């Protein structure tokens, strides 16, 4: 993360100038918005096809069943969940001022009173929710794409086109010219995207491509992570389903087309993660009762969902069906298995074990390394794009100076150059030999921005090893930069990497930047019984 604060500092300074230039003009609110965004938490949009499990995963990450989920299609408007001091929901209609909304919680999920508004009239719904998990990350639940209800898909595309982010200031004119040099396009409402999918469907590829090509959500391979979000269904609910899912994710990761569209692919059993993150005592008790059944009887119950909820057994059928809806057949089978193995003496212990099975923790770790680790950079970059667009939209006296600031930072910040190279390598715009490319991508922070991660060293490697490794790597890229028969683009890439190595090497004795444990949302167990 070397130099991030310097970069963000420069962006902040440019925004300060802009604030004074635009004071009292129509652009003022826009600048204020961009500043707020720069200093606020990272915005992560959860995107994907209909029923990819977006709301479910959001709930799992927050650790509360906030976003409504059901078997049909339900999220029709982007929902923003951010940390705050009070519990509050605000409706942002397409036309007219924002207004507060009354809400109740049904089984934990928020149910809003839209008054006279239809879902189609809303640009977005804002939910302020005091939550430790949301402190570092604002989560955005987006409408599904490729849904049978075509209007809903349109809503999703509008969101990623920036339409749902009316408060974001000046990104609406859509000329997108500022994006050319950054390979990114205009600033969308989100800093990073979790793309959820059930399998890798052609529609998924098409959607990822369209929102990257058009610069929607400012999505680039660098800030997009693909998630196999209903991973347990890949193995049709068998106990070993997650192992299958890991295998499938590995294969997808190697797929050339997907590689150009996202950082990586990870499997998560979203429903199980949500249930585990919000496991209740009554559910725990019911699961214990199940395990007390004779094994043969329990096995019969677990053969199918209908058997589980209809056959005679402990607790009324309705209660068992409720458990099944929350955990899914895979979650229920897994919980029973864990309890049998003695891994769930208490509800929190079972919850922890289930979370591990769901692999939600792996996704959190990835978010920490990939997104939180370069949070300032991603935000600063988004702010620059937004500011550039604002200046073009509202030319006033002195705005030329702001535009020049933006230009200067964009062209000089090495961090942006790195991101650009990383994206170019991902998309194949720049090609290197395979082993060179692997090293380049790692150096640019694809596996983590920590110097050791960039070198592929273990986190415990002593400083001396790190320094030596840098010298070694540096020499290799210098040789390439001077190689008379290397292609122009390879030489350009080598020059970028040489600067990267130099900057990183300079930071070694002082700042090995260990992981910040508090950086990412943690999950609590909520008990309601």
């Amino acid at each position, binding site marked *: 993360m070397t130099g991030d604060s310097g970069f963000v500092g420069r962006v902040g300074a440019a925004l300060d100038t802009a604030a004074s230039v635009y004071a009292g003009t129509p652009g003022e609110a826009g600048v204020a918005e961009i500043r707020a965004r720069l200093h606020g938490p990272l915005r992560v949009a959860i995107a994907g096809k209909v029923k990819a499990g977006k709301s479910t995963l959001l709930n799992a990450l927050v650790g509360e069943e906030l976003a409504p989920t059901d078997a049909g299609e339900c999220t029709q408007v982007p929902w923003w969940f951010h940390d705050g001091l009070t519990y509050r929901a605000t409706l942002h209609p397409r036309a007219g001022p924002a207004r507060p909304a009354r809400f109740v919680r049904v089984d934990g999920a928020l149910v809003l009173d839209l008054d006279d508004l239809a879902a189609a009239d809303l640009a977005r719904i804002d939910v302020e929710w005091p939550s430790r998990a949301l402190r570092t990350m604002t989560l955005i639940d987006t409408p599904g794409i490729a849904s049978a209800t075509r209007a809903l898909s349109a809503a999703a595309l509008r969101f990623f086109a920036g339409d749902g982010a009316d408060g974001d200031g000046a990104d609406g004119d859509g000329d997108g010219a500022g994006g050319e040099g950054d390979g990114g396009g205009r600033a969308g409402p989100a800093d990073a995207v979790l793309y959820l999918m059930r399998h890798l469907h052609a529609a998924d590829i098409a959607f990822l491509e369209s929102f990257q090509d058009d610069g929607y959500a400012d999505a680039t391979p660098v800030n997009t992570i693909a998630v196999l979000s209903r991973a347990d269904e890949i193995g049709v609910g068998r106990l070993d389903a997650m192992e*299958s*899912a890991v295998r499938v994710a590995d294969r997808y990761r190697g797929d050339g087309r997907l590689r150009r569209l996202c950082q990586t692919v990870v499997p998560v059993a979203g429903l199980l993660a949500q249930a585990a993150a919000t496991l209740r005592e009554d559910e725990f008790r019911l699961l214990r009762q199940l395990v007390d059944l004779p094994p043969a009887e329990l096995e019969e119950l677990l053969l199918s*969902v209908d058997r589980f909820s209809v056959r005679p057994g402990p607790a009324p059928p309705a209660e068992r069906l409720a458990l099944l*809806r929350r955990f899914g*057949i895979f979650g229920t089978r897994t919980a029973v298995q864990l309890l049998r193995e003695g891994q769930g003496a208490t509800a929190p212990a079972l919850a922890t074990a289930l979370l591990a099975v769901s692999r939600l923790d792996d996704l959190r770790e990835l978010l920490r390394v990939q997104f939180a680790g370069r949070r300032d950079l991603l935000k600063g970059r988004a702010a620059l794009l937004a500011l550039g667009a604002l200046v073009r939209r509202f030319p006033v006296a002195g705005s030329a100076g702001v535009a020049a600031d933006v230009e200067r930072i964009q062209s000089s910040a090495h961090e942006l150059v790195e991101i650009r190279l990383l994206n170019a390598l991902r998309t194949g715009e720049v090609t290197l030999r395979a082993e060179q490319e692997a090293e380049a991508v790692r150096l640019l922070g694809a596996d983590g921005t920590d110097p050791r991660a960039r070198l592929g060293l273990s986190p415990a490697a002593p400083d001396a090893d790190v320094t030596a490794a840098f010298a070694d790597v540096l020499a290799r890229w210098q040789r390439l930069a001077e190689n008379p028969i290397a292609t122009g683009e390879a030489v350009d890439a080598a020059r970028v990497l040489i600067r990267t190595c130099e900057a990183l090497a300079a930071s070694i004795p002082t700042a090995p930047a260990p992981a910040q444990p508090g950086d990412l949302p943690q999950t609590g167990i909520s008990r309601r019984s």
Partner: protein
Amino acid sequence: MGVTAADDLVALLDELGDSCAAAGRDDLGLRIRARRGLFANPGFSVVVAGEFKAGKSSLVNALLGVDVCPVDDDVATSVPIVVRYAPAPTLRARRSLDDDDQDSVDPGDEQGAIAGEPVDRLGAYATESGNPANREGVRAVEVGLPAAVLAGGLVLVDTPGVGGLGSAYTSATMAAVAVAHAVLFVSDASQEYTAPELDFLGAVRAACPEVVAVLNKIDIVPDWKRIRDLDDEWLERAGVAGGVVPTSAQLELLGCRHSRSDLRDESGIAEVVTRLDGVADAVRRVMAAAAVADAHAVVAQLASPLRAEHDALADPAAVIGPLEQVQEHARGLTGDGAEWLGALEDGMVDLEAELDEELGRRLKTVLADTERTVRAIDPAADWDGFEAALTRQVSGEIAAVSARLTESANALATRLAQDFAGHETAVAAPVTPVGELAFAADGPLVLGAGATPWRGVLVDAGWGGLEALGVLGSILTFTSISLFNPFSLVIGAFIGGKTLRDSRRRELERRREQAVEAVNRYVQEATRAADRELKSTTRRLRRELRTTYQRRADALYRSARESLAAAEKSLGADPAGRQARSRQLEAQLGRLDALDRRAAALTAGGR
């Protein structure tokens, strides 16, 4: 059609075969034997189609009651798998079909079949991992199995899923759908139909009207009933009758493995079988009606010399003149100058021209659209999506042309059949007066007013088009399935190396030019390939029709000659023996008349 009626029909055909042999008419016997074979094994093909990973292969396995098709969480079916009845397990990988109808069969496959565990190697041909990018060049894999569900002639075709990244898959599936009797449209119970699924359903419905929707994996989805209701609404809007059948292939297979009827009852597979039986029944009716029509025609020809002789015994002059005319008529049907043959040849030429025109027109439209698209995008950035869309579009158009081929060829064959039925009546009049043969309108085996809807086309019951001839089963189904399969062309192959990707922004125009050229060459190649396959199919079709009807014409001519000869023979007969001979002939005619009436009764269901 009840088992008894079917058995009776087979018995009748057998007796009729014996009568042909006794009369020394092997030519007519051949027709009856061929018909008996077709009737006993009509080859009712059901294509299992749907999005990838919806559980198509497990559904096929559940229907078979045994794990045959490879099922894996990751690896998907990549080549159509055709499963039909065989007394012992067999496996054949179809690589190509040349004009002589000889499949190139890997000798290893045959040995594998003898070894008895051939299906174990199915994955090596039919899955993405066993046969990546179809390096084996396999167009379809045929599996023979002694499974009860197949014994009635059901042929199950498991297809590669739609919507995965390999766009070539769709074309194979659509080609299979275009010639299927019915389609099992499989979706996964965990969500309602998505937009791509509904698009695909629309295409399937257009290519094959008999669609049975199946909602699989209900064993793992707590809210499957809600999804079923939502899907039922979509199906109603799409015009698919009967609603979706909820199934759990998993439970069925568990039930089969552990002989647990309770699990099999819960699996819903029995309902799928019932629905398929309903469609199969319609096909069997066509076959039964065709068999009865053949029986009538053959009886008439067997009876014709007997009656000629019998009538000539009474009044030779009244008989011989007309018989000479009939013989002339029949002679006119044989040889290369026959009128019907000319009509067939002309029809085939028209058909080819029509397909040619249709293929050209459709692909030209694709080409124009694509060129426009290429000019609007940066081929370096959008290539993969673009390429996938183009191949999908091209294969969709080719599937449409192939559906057109089926339809037009069917119409042609029906015309020919009707024409010939007229000739047969003229040459050898039915034994039982036609009035008595009127089909009872409400009998269980009755085919509307002599016709039955099949794939949206009215197929004439007695004379049937391709279906009644069994030609569709033998020619179209398996050529088309396999031939439109991996369209082994890759657009990228027309572009040198990685030019597209490597190029820089400023070379955008040059890149577009290259892309347009590549697309042009791809579409040209695709057109050529499709044209070749269509021509080869029409050639086979022509040969099949020609052979069939030439045989019939020859038989008819022989019947006419023998009738005339029999009449002339009676001229010189001993007057004393005339009465005895006459009674003898009447007895023989009576036996034939009884056969004819039995056949009529079968059709009318009057038992």
